[in-house]
């Protein structure tokens, strides 16, 4: 008996010592000087500049550079091209390439390299069908070793904007280009991918031959952490130095907690895209203008922003925030005004029957299907808030929560009354987003389908994309966005932002798009 006890006691003691030894053996969590530790939900991929998943955009942007660079507000600045001229008919672009830029393997960046990359992209045209520019390119010629000419079918004005995108038009060293993609990731950018451990991390090292200002950090380690909660814990325990991105990176909950406790430096970016709902003009009862306007007046966006979005996303009154090109139009927002909404509905003949709560007309209740992604807690909460707001003016919203793909299918074929959808954000807004409104497979097309002036809208969109006259372009955008606003086919809710939380890092700013993380400007805090 006694021996049993002794043995048990010995086992217990031994396990305690073992546990203590394990705890003691833990490596110091703090990262070494000169290394910034970030995290992402997956490995960055093979990093082919001309391909999509599994290549991660933020990492492609670290290694590869564009001819021209997109800055916040939609202005374009020189990058690998130092100058360019556009022919009067808007069909020919001549670029002068930067002197002194080299790929990290020593290959010079010149017209031949640019041509080779365009050839690689154009040999896979169907892969890039979604991007209008690729379809517009007729030919790419070398004028001399430092100049290149791009010829287009139409005078497509967003050419420079789309050349600035992270993919597909960025440049890998011709020495690694093969018909099957790049052999290894070699670009001109400030970072080189130097190590990948599947499922664990990727390491980027500063490119010593970079033509531009050298980043302060020597290395960036990107740990693979798929779960936002785990990521928050990793930050709290010092495993990573930086969280940067949208709600996929960090939940608003964790962000507010870090901010309140001062766990790290927190910051919120300017609007990067719009969180909105499309209102279906092709289906009763939202086919009536008065009903759509009533929806816009009935929803209390300020309360939604404060209570459900933690005040992290500013209230949206328009489809595009005013910091985007051509969108600062001074239109009058639909103010939160339930009385006005009720009056609009009354005038349209939708009245509350005696003893009832839902408005009726000709025996039909005023009812709309509100569709959202059922397992997205945020969308569900928003949907419920909007439902309550609508109910307050006698408007019955039926909540339909489904999985993401099913909701996408509804967006494509128009089986919705109200449905969530975000705009694409910089640098796609407004031009690419507006362009997609002409495509039936988009919720926007479906939402606008019932408008009497839909054909006119589409014609104006087609015109604005190819006009070379700046004033005409402004006028066309004003017309398009004004019609959409007055017809109330959208219920903009808030402007999406990026968030950052950092510790021991100075100079954490925001890029012009959520996919471009300005690691170059970050430096270790003294």
């Amino acid at each position, binding site marked *: 008996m006694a021996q049993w006890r002794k043995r048990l006691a010995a086992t217990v003691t031994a396990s305690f010592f073992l546990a203590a030894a394990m705890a003691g053996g833990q490596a110091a969590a703090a990262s070494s000087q000169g290394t910034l530790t970030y995290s992402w939900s997956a490995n960055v991929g093979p990093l082919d500049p001309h391909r999509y998943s599994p290549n991660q955009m933020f990492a492609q942007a670290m290694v590869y550079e564009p001819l021209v660079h997109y800055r916040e507000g939609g202005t374009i600045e020189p990058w690998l091209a130092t100058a360019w001229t556009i022919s009067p008919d808007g069909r020919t672009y001549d670029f002068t390439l930067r002197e002194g830029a080299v790929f990290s393997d020593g290959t010079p960046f010149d017209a031949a390299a640019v041509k080779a990359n365009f050839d690689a992209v154009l040999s896979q045209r169907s892969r890039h*069908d979604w991007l209008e520019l690729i379809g517009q390119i007729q030919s790419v010629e070398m004028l001399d070793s430092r100049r290149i000419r791009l010829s287009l079918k139409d005078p497509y004005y967003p050419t420079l904007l789309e050349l600035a995108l992270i993919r597909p038009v960025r440049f890998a060293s011709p020495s690694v280009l093969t018909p099957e993609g790049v052999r290894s990731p070699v670009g001109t950018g400030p970072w080189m991918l130097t190590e990948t451990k599947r*499922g664990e991390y990727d390491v980027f090292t500063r490119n010593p031959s970079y033509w531009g200002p050298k980043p302060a950090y020597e290395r960036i380690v990107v740990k693979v952490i798929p779960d936002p909660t785990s990521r928050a814990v990793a930050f709290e325990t010092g495993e990573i130095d930086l969280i940067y991105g949208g709600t996929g990176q960090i939940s608003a909950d964790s962000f507010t907690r870090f901010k309140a406790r001062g766990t790290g430096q927190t910051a919120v970016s300017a609007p990067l895209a719009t969180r909105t709902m499309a209102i279906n003009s092709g289906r009763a009862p939202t086919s009536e203008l008065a009903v759509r306007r009533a929806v816009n007046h009935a929803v209390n966006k300020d309360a939604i922003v404060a209570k459900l979005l933690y005040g992290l996303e500013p209230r949206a009154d328009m489809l595009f925030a005013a910091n985007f090109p051509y969108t600062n139009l001074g239109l009058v927002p639909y103010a939160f005004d339930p009385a006005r909404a009720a009056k609009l509905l009354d005038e349209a003949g939708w009245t509350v029957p005696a003893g009832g709560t839902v408005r009726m007309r000709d025996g039909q209740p005023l009812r709309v299907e509100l569709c959202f992604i059922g397992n997205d807690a945020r969308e569900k909460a928003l949907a419920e808030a909007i439902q309550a707001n609508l109910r307050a003016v006698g408007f019955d919203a039926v909540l339909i929560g489904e999985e993401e*793909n099913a909701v996408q299918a509804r967006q494509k074929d128009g089986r919705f009354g109200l449905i969530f959808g975000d705009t694409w954000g910089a640098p796609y807004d407004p031009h690419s987003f507006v362009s997609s409104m002409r495509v039936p497979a988009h919720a926007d097309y479906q939402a606008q389908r019932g408008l009497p002036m839909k054909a006119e809208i589409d014609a104006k969109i087609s015109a604005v994309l190819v006009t070379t006259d700046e004033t005409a372009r402004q006028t066309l955008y004003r017309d398009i966005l004004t019609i959409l606003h007055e017809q109330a086919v959208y219920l903009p809710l808030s402007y999406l932002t990026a968030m950052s939380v950092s510790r021991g890092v100075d100079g954490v700013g925001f890029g012009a798009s959520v996919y471009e993380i300005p690691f170059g400007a970050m430096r270790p805090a003294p």
Partner: protein
Amino acid sequence: MLRFIVGRLLTLPPLLLAVSVGVFLLLRLGRGDPALDYLRLSNIPPTDAAVAAAHQLLGLDRPLAEQYLSWLWQALHLDFGLSYVTRRPVLDDLLYYLPATLQLGAAALVVTLAVSLPLGIWAARHRDRLPDHLVRALAFVGVSIPNFWLGFLLVLLFAVTLNWLPPLGRGGLSHLVMPVVAVALMSLCINARLLRASMLETAGQRHVLYARLRGLPERRIVQNHILRNALLPIVTATGMHIGELLGGTLVIENIFGWPGVGRYAVSAIYNRDYPVLQCFTLLMTVIFVLCNLLVDVLYAWLDPRIRVLREVGR
């Protein structure tokens, strides 16, 4: 015995075939479309043309039967296709991540057995006294706590508050502690309870009474006459626990950033990565079948009665 093992192994191919058909169809019964997920991951707007192109790229534009047969033919050559997401050979990816999962599962199994056996014995020997109550309370709590919640609690206490253990990743022993505890606790509690009950039942049997009459020392009675007989149900249960532990790693790997097949499979589920899920299911089936076979062999080896029955049955 050899015949028994070979016989059992021969049932594996038809089982795998049935599983592969079942999984193939079940995956496609879902309403989702992997092409849409592929486009979402690629940040490409899902226009009709883009969806059609993605269907073609992923081989989803062919009739279902043709898809299955070509998959089967390739699978027979151990080619399970390319992952929709990573665009790498699926088997290669899974085998790359498998050792981490096996390490976690094996460590959890060791902990389960190493802790549950003493606990069960302790409780049984002090029936209805404090140790027994403690073990029963622990078992009740342990069985009721979902492992992912326990995982988060452990992280909160040992990583965030006390800063004793690393919150995630794979590395030294310290990285193993929390995920192993989170995965093992439930099996451990079930095992302890089971052993306690089994020991008490055995202790009431006649041969134990006779042993006492023979004046054998208590320790020998417990070791040779109670414990050895009481262990049989534990062997069976362990076979089932292996499944439980491997299943548990699916969730736990995500919480602790453990680079194993579980985490890989969960993201594959999220992204509707059919080839990965098909191969993963088959791989898990093989592992389960082999583990259960091992348990059965062990069982026969431990218990002569079963061995004899099998011989007689033949």
